[in-house]
């Protein structure tokens, strides 16, 4: 039996058809004059053939399983299928971008005509803000696009914007409000509505709890997206494991998830015991014994800011110049909801969130560590009250969380 690795390497290349010309001669020589070598070639041929057949049969079985799962998923359209979600997302985001750009362009051209020589930006002054629709919508386009880029959010989250599609289309006329997000026109608009400042639209957000989890994992930092409500205890119970093949796994609530080093957000995918990759089998064939390793890792539960999306249906205005009580009220227009706040807010820091849970909306005003719960039914000036996070579960969304330092556990 030829054991030398060199010969095995030659046989391997021969069977895979990757021999270099000089090696070809060598193999031919060996095949003719070395019966042991020729015998080995036949054995390895059988080995390769056997492995290929075995693998193909196993893959076929797994494919049947995936097909079954696919069919089951098809039967329950409410399930969390990334497939449909991604597809919808791309169609919708494409459609929205196209509508905004084309719409903006058409309006602009209609207003000035294609032969216009006026290439200067239109100056928007106090008196004209309300009527200069073209400008505001055009600004909105850029603003929105910039906004979308800035958010740097993966597709999974933006899918929540789907609901917006209908609203946005219906509220074309109202979109001029959003133009305030463009810094060039901001001050003018604020003057126009008399003393009130409008919260930039990036600071008015909605959050819908999602079932899908995603993560990034690089340079010793693990960030978990999609569970902003995760408590510290639960976060501490997250464990990052490394098996003998140096594949990483996340253990969360007795489930294992595959991890890879990634700067891009990836969905967390549960490890399937039957699946055979990264040596997962070693993890499941025997009880997992793990010990802390030297490798440090910072676990970061990503907060609601990054799990929320812009809420365009709500316009928030506030008046800093207040001497008395801090108050707020909601003003329901036909299609637009306005929130008017009398309080000392910082344009840069204040955020308003609409949290959706069980079909209901809950509104919160957040600035630094101050969290105020807002009642949508408050029609008259209502005092702003800070929320008690021990009793208001949703308000815990807004607590700033410190990253947790821990270590990777190694399989023993």
């Amino acid at each position, binding site marked *: 039996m030829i054991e030398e690795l060199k010969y095995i390497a030659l046989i391997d290349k021969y069977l895979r058809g990757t021999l270099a010309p000089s090696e070809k001669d060598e193999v031919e020589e060996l095949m003719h004059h070395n019966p042991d070598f020729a015998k080995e070639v036949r054995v390895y041929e059988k080995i390769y053939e056997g492995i290929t057949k075995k693998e193909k049969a196993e893959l076929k079985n797994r494919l049947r399983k995936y097909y079954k799962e696919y069919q089951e998923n098809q039967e329950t359209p409410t399930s969390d299928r990334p497939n449909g979600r991604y597809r919808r997302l791309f169609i919708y985001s494409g459609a929205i971008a196209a509508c905004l750009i084309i719409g903006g362009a058409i309006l602009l051209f209609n207003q000035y005509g294609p032969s216009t020589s006026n290439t200067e930006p239109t100056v928007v002054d106090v008196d004209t803000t309300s009527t200069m629709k073209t400008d505001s919508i055009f600004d909105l386009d850029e603003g929105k696009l910039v906004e979308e880029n800035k958010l740097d959010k993966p597709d999974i989250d933006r899918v929540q914007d789907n609901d917006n599609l209908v609203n946005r289309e219906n509220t074309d006329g109202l979109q001029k409000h959003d133009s305030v997000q463009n810094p060039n026109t901001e001050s003018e608009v604020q003057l126009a509505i008399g003393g009130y400042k409008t919260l930039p639209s990036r600071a008015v957000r909605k959050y819908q709890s999602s079932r899908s989890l995603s993560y990034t994992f690089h340079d010793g930092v693990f960030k978990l997206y999609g569970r902003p409500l995760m408590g510290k205890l639960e976060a501490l119970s997250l464990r990052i494991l490394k098996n003998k093949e140096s594949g990483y796994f996340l253990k969360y609530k007795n489930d294992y998830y595959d991890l890879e080093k990634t700067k891009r957000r990836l969905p967390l*995918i549960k490890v*399937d015991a039957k699946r055979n*990759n990264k040596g997962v089998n070693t993890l499941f064939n025997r009880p997992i014994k793990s010990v802390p390793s030297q490798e440090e890792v910072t676990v970061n539960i990503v907060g609601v800011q990054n799990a929320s999306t812009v809420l365009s249906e709500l316009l928030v205005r506030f008046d800093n110049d207040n001497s008395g009580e801090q108050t707020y009220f909601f003003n329901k227009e036909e299609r637009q909801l306005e929130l008017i706040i009398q309080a000392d807010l910082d344009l840069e820091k204040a955020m308003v969130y609409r949290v959706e849970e069980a079909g209901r909306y809950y509104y919160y005003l957040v600035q630094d560590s101050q969290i105020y719960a807002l009642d949508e039914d408050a029609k008259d000036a209502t005092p702003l009250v800070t929320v008690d996070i021990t009793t208001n579960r949703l308000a815990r969304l807004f607590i700033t969380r410190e990253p947790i330092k821990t270590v990777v556990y190694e399989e023993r």
Partner: protein
Amino acid sequence: MTDHELLRQLKSGNEECLGQLYAHLGMVKSWICRNNGDEEDALDVFQEAIIVFYKNVMSGKYEQRSKISTYLFEISKRQWLNQLNRRKRHEQPREANGFESKFEEELIYEVTHPGPRLKDYLGRAMSRLGEPCKSLLETAIFFGMRMEDIAERFNYSSARSASQQKLRCLKKLRSSISYEDIIALEQ
């Protein structure tokens, strides 16, 4: 999931993403049903197409020139046409001399499926081999994955060290197999 994302996930080992490809089964089904096949044929052919696609992705041979759905459809079409041709060739002599060729076919079946099968024999040898060798060899031999990619997936420092590891695994596997046994196995 976009094509791009799917490819990435597959390369990083998330095989169950393949399930999503069944979204494209519909067009293969309708094409095969219009071309002398039935739904079962379509499912078989499509499964083969997924395997071809998957292996090409893993071995780095897949180039994203068109959409995955188009690619799968093309492979399915080709496979089905080949199958139809093969069937034709088999059917013609049978029509001329039905009994004999049927008998022949059975005979072939008898001869080619004797006792233990090669794949089962290898299956046992591979489980005795244990990890990481088992996965390493499966990935290298069945998928023909490049050594650079294997090094990355199995965390070896370089393609060279992954290669060395593969050869050592082959040697280990070979030492557990007897020449007489394996040569005797026909299939």
